């Protein structure tokens, strides 16, 4: 058997190198996120009064769509090149391969968040505090685990662009609810920030564990 840790790192490294060479994902995702803000603005007629109540919703919508694209892309690319089968034909552990891909996708998504959060602060005048960043990052972990799991699953299925949101979104709801609450509180609404964060941590642990157990069945088929 090969060293699982080395495999995960190699897979993540390969994905990040490919992204760096082609610079496909991050710049466009970042601009896309800003555009989502612009569209949201037109849809909602935001003024300074209601911005703090709408900003969290927009944040989560943008994050959800950026995440769907980032995770979907991670496995779709392997599928298009038929390289997923080649990966699976090695003795490397499917869980390690999965972890590597999830790691790369998560780092890319965090790259987008590094654009999204300041943009949100700039355009909606909401505070960009440590609490907001912490809540978003915590939610990202669990969302990434789930998103990659289903992305791996749908990559081998027809109509993956469509099945992915369908499978992923329902299970992301806990993160959107808890994360949304945490961000709203951090932006000035009343509520219990610590409780929401604790919930996020619980869900993170639950889904990361479940995902690493399930990864084997999804990939090795």
């Amino acid at each position, binding site marked *: *058997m*090969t*060293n699982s840790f*080395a*495999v995960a790192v*190699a*897979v993540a490294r*390969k994905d990040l*190198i*490919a992204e760096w*060479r*082609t610079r496909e994902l991050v710049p466009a995702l970042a601009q896309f996120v800003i555009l989502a803000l612009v569209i949201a603005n037109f849809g909602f007629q935001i003024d300074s009064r209601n911005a703090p109540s709408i900003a969290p919703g927009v944040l989560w919508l943008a994050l959800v769509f950026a995440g769907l694209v980032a995770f979907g892309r991670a496995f779709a690319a392997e599928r298009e*090149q*038929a*390289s*997923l*089968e*080649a*990966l*699976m*034909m*090695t*003795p*490397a*552990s499917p869980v390690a*391969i999965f972890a590597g891909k999830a790691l790369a996708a998560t780092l890319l998504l965090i790259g987008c968040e590094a654009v999204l959060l300041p943009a949100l602060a700039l355009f909606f005048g909401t505070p960009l505090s440590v609490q907001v960043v912490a809540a978003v990052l915590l939610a990202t972990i669990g969302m990434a685990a789930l998103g990659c799991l289903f992305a791996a699953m749908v990559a081998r299925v027809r109509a993956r662009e469509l099945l992915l949101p369908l499978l992923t979104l329902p299970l992301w709801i806990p993160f959107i609810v808890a994360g949304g609450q945490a961000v709203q509180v951090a932006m000035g609404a009343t509520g219990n920030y610590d409780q929401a964060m604790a919930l996020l941590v619980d869900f993170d642990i639950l889904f990361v564990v479940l995902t690493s157990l399930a990864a084997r069945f999804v990939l*090795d088929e």
Partner: protein
Amino acid sequence: MSIIVANGLTHWFGKEVALESVDLAIDAGEHMAVLGENGSGKTTLLRILATAARPTSGRLEIMGLDALRERRRLRQRIGYVAHAPGLYPALSAAENLEFFCTLQGVSRTRAVEALALVGLAPVASRPAGLLSRGMQQRLAIARAILHDPKLLVLDEPDASLGSDGAELLAAVMLDRTVVLATHDHALANRLCQRTLTLRHGRSVGTATRLHVVR
């Protein structure tokens, strides 16, 4: 000693049967060519032998292990070249191989050797996506031998190779057990001691070299 022992391999795609009770026994070091018309089930059989697909029914033992259960263990010892090369277009030829070295758990020097063997050393740093069809096929062959597998499963590896393809394949197949699907009877005859001919998913006869000569 038989490296592959298959009994009654059958594969259905929905209501179409692609492979029907094929029996096989391949000895260590033997080279077997799988022949047959288009759609006769060669790819289906090879994918099963490479553990890339599972038969609908039938038993398959490879190197003494149950191929339907011990897939990961077997994959350390099997090299497979499929129809599609399955490379990463943004990574260079060398990087592609080095990446698969890590996944196979072998040293990266193997990548350099394999590249040289298939004659891609001059384009080692070119992105795989920009290689010509035959060069991509060579890269896929190089990848299949990185981990020095005992068993090689080659699905029409000659399809887009240049005129030195036969020598390249001979070099790659040396000292390995090989199952090779091809349409080129002359090539099969030159590289393999045995042939298995499929028709509509059924084996319609195996032959040893002498009988194959046209």
